[in-house]
């Protein structure tokens, strides 16, 4: 196997390249990324475990899994996911994947939206026309297309804009590192109290999460933060705050184009977030921090930890025009307990997985989706963003399906 030889001999390359790429050392050129990289890695690991979903618990015969909030009892198997490094050809990309850069008014903005577009209610005035550009690796061809550019309500258009693409709006942000001077600047430029909801949080003590909670009303927190407008921006390259006692809000915002990032307040007076891609840290003082933490602790209600994305595992049972059916009975001890889920395939993201990975009816698949299932609406999965083949391992023997 020639490829195995490359893999083996790569083991002998210069140590400086091994050291340079060491997982704990990522982000040398952009130190602000380092700590968020680490945090994100934790989330990603959790995501992989959940993708595996029904991971091996040797002393139990069954395991429980949550499929978008629906509790399922599955037998004790391990699942290997066939992660494939696919770069989609131009015709298989969604429009926002194609044109991920827009030049407007002399500034270059890059795509911020992760999975889904922005609801119309967040869109303000039309600003003009921007030039979108994209690149197809396969044909090595550059593409350009004009798009209408809109203001996002409450957000400075010098920092973020919305581009209208095929009737849907997507967030693009200025691709430059311009750290703010104070917290007030960020609160104003992005109207954070209106654009960012602080409705779920975890409490961390000595770096370990001690609970996850939901919060109905975040007005008091924004009130406290608005009184800390002068809090200074701190260049915190060392990530020294990690491991301290803090609460960490899950930061998801359509207008800001962010999905499950973090917004944390540490007991010793720091606010930090990666909502703006770069790490922003401010010193708001111990009194304000403790006020916010006490409020959250008092008003938070126990909640189930949300995975980064939801996953559905099962057999691909049917491929329809705008849907597919997934049957999870292969994971149940008794096949009669199986459920059939309908997955809406309104955009190309599932269809291309079927085409490219040659997934046919009968294959074991893992669907990644972003919206929790609504039991009242039946078992239809919306917001499916990817599908990969899975292999079920019974005991220690991998059984390719």
């Amino acid at each position: 196997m020639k490829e195995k030889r490359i893999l083996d001999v790569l083991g002998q390359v210069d140590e400086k390249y091994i050291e340079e790429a060491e997982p704990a050392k990522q982000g040398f050129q952009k130190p602000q990324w380092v700590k968020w990289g680490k945090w994100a890695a934790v989330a990603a690991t959790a995501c992989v475990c959940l993708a595996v979903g029904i991971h091996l618990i040797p002393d139990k015969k069954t395991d429980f899994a949550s499929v978008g909030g629906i509790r399922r009892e599955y037998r004790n198997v391990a699942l290997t996911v066939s992660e494939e490094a696919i770069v989609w050809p131009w015709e298989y990309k969604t429009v926002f994947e194609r044109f991920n850069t827009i030049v407007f008014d002399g500034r270059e903005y890059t795509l911020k939206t992760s999975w889904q577009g922005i609801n119309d209610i967040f869109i303000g005035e039309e600003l003009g026309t921007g030039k979108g550009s994209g690149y197809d690796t396969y044909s090595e061809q550059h593409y350009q297309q004009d798009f209408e550019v809109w203001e996002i309500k409450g957000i400075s258009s010098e920092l973020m804009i919305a581009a209208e693409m095929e009737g849907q709006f997507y967030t693009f942000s200025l691709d430059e590192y311009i750290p703010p001077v104070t917290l007030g600047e960020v609160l104003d430029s992005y109207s954070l109290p209106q654009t960012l909801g602080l409705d779920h949080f975890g409490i961390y003590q000595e770096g370990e999460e001690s609970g996850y909670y939901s919060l109905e009303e975040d007005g008091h927190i924004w009130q406290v933060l608005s009184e800390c407008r002068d809090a200074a921006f701190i260049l915190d390259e060392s990530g020294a705050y990690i491991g301290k006692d803090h609460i960490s809000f899950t930061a998801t915002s359509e207008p800001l184009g962010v999905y499950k990032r973090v917004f944390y307040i540490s007991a010793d007076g720091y606010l930090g977030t990666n909502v703006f891609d770069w790490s922003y840290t401010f010193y708001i003082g111990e009194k304000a921090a403790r006020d916010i933490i006490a409020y959250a602790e008092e008003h938070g209600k126990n909640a189930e930890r949300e995975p980064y994305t939801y996953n559905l595992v099962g057999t691909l049972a049917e491929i329809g025009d705008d849907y597919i059916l997934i049957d999870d009975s292969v994971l149940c001890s008794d096949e009669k307990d199986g459920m059939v889920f309908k997955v809406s395939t309104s955009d190309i993201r599932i269809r291309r997985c079927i085409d490219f990975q040659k997934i046919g009816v009968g294959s074991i698949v893992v669907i990644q989706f972003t919206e929790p299932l609504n039991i009242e609406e039946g078992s239809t999965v919306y917001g499916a963003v990817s599908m990969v083949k899975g292999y079920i391992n019974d005991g220690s023997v991998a059984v390719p399906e």
Partner: protein
Amino acid sequence: MEDNQIVELYWARSENAISETADKYGRYCFSIARNILHSSEDSEECVNDTYLNAWNAMPDQRPDKLAAFLGRITRNLSLNRWEKYTAQKRGAGQVPLVLDELQECIPAKERTDRIVDDLVLADILNRFLASLTAEKRKIFMRRYWYLSPVTEIASDFAISESKVKMSLLRSRNELKRFLEKEGVDL
């Protein structure tokens, strides 16, 4: 403890060398083994074998970069174990995926006429790595040296998965061209 102090412990044949190595580099080695073997039990064994190999290698060796030295041992042990398991149909983890991807780097047969040994090939790979930009090189090494999943690389670099995949695709194409230019028959 500093790396050179740990190396001194090995040279002094102190058993603390192992515990200090485990404290500082246990997780690092485990993550390499885990990416390859996809089994905690096997990965633990490989990490323990790494300590034993390090114990046997020092003295005479005095590594400059202890992490890379240990990581290289873990990687070799894990790949060997993976190969053994594949023969027993127990293969899992990132290796099959990475091998599929590396197939794209194999030069076209008509463009190669030079059979090289591993040392020469390693030298060619070093020159290829030196030709990449720092970020592309780190992403390439994370995928093909550390066998990290694409999702993990994307998270660590705070870039999208598609950017990682794009970078890897370009690097693989460049490696293929590089090997063809050298006329290397793998």
